[in-house]
């Protein structure tokens, strides 16, 4: 017996379709894309206001602040990852689709990263300049944020799937995801600090890369399992 009949769209088609659909939805509601970005910028603004504009201190704490802000803004946007699908019944339809659920979960997370994580990576140099971070570490900063936000989106998708449909979802999501996200924050921020101090930082990049690869290959399965459980 053939597993899937001829004419059944392949996995890649499913992945691209759901990514495209979510990007299209985001396009029609640009506020959802911009809010996390504004949030990111605002948290980065709060810090100098709180501790004072001393250049030395800002350069020193810049990587940490940018990373904490990136983590928080990713977390903020994750809450809505499965919410609208849950509300209008699309999630039910995804669960009975012939496409493997982990692939669909990966596609949704990919779209989420493209509209929340990726723009954040792009504007991070602007904020880094205000923190007087040396311009030669912008590459490292962006690379760590790129790898890190991918991991954070994927980790967060597990949490979002576990809390979808719960009343106290937002606070709970943070509680579940923050401890899981700590290694990413720790690796990312310290790698940038090392680079700023002209130390060897490649270990951190490799570790972040490994984390991202690991989460791409494992997190969608956990997310899919969690979605099936939450949607029972």
């Amino acid at each position, binding site marked *: 017996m053939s597993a899937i009949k001829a004419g059944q769209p392949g996995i890649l088609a499913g992945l691209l379709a759901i990514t495209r659909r979510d990007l299209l939805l985001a396009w029609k509601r640009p506020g959802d894309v911009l809010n996390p970005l504004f949030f990111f910028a605002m948290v980065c603004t709060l810090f100098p206001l709180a501790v004072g504009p001393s250049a030395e201190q800002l350069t020193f704490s810049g990587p940490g602040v940018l990373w904490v802000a990136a983590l928080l803004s990713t977390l903020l946007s994750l809450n809505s990852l499965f919410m609208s699908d849950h509300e209008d019944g699309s999630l039910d339809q995804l669960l009975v689709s012939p496409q493997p659920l982990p692939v669909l979960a990966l596609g949704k997370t990919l779209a989420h990263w493209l509209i929340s994580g990726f723009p954040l990576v792009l504007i991070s140099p602007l904020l880094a300049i205000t923190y007087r971070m040396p311009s030669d570490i912008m590459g490292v900063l962006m690379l760590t944020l790129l790898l890190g936000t991918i991991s954070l989106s994927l980790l967060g998708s*597990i949490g979002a799937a*576990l*809390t979808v449909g*719960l*009343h*106290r979802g937002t606070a*709970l999501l943070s*509680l*579940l995801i*923050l*401890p*899981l996200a*700590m*290694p990413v924050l*720790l*690796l990312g921020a*310290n790698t940038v600090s*090392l680079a700023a101090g002209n130390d060897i930082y490649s*270990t951190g990049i490799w*570790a972040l890369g490994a*984390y991202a690869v690991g989460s791409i290959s*494992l997190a969608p399965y*956990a997310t899919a*399992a*969690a979605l099936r*459980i*939450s949607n*029972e």
Partner: protein
Amino acid sequence: MWKFFHQLASPPHFYRLAATLIPWLAVPGVLLIAYGAYAGLFLVSADYQQGDAFRIIYVHVPSAYLSMMAYMMMAVGGGIGLIWRMKLAHAVGAAAAPLGAAFTFLALVTGSIWGRPMWGTWWEWGDPRMTSELILLFLYFGYMALRSSIDDTAKADKASAVLALVGVVNVVIVHFSVEWWSSLHQGQTVFKKGTMDADMRIPLFAMLIGFSLIFGAMLVSRLRTEVLFRERRTRWVRELVLSPEGGK
């Protein structure tokens, strides 16, 4: 053998067995802890570097050990529950979480108290084990929060099992990343391994086993409550409650 496990997994059998099992775990546990504490406090001579403060390890190490064991049990229980749909395995997670959190708290506080005379500070971020332990405490909080926010027991079981499994992978990553991080900042040395004399080690083993037994007794007791609660609509619970001897 298989039959034994099957019977163990049957709620009424477990409920009855657990009642007899608890004293068998608790009494030797208390005796071992009493011996270990006495020996650790009075019989063992002070460490030549740390002085008498090293005696704190007799409560700190067993707590830290149990804090990790409890998390492992939650993850293994969750995994078994998800794969073989064994309800008792899910109940293990529900029963172990508050105990694990309590021992994690103990490990943190005793570690911090030990650090005060040794490091001159109540909290040392540079110590990788303390930081990992703190993250572990947060993982317990997340697990318990998720459990308590889902009303349907079956759903809460499965969701928290997924979280525990994701968390257990993460605990390993936390461990290594924190180690790397503290090596960057020249972390302080903590309890060194392998420098203990035999007469220092024996009370520690007694404490470890004693703590494990007490933990086992509390776990079985909580598990018994979980089983009773989950089976509250069944006939055997009705018969148990209505029977003249009742239950404790």
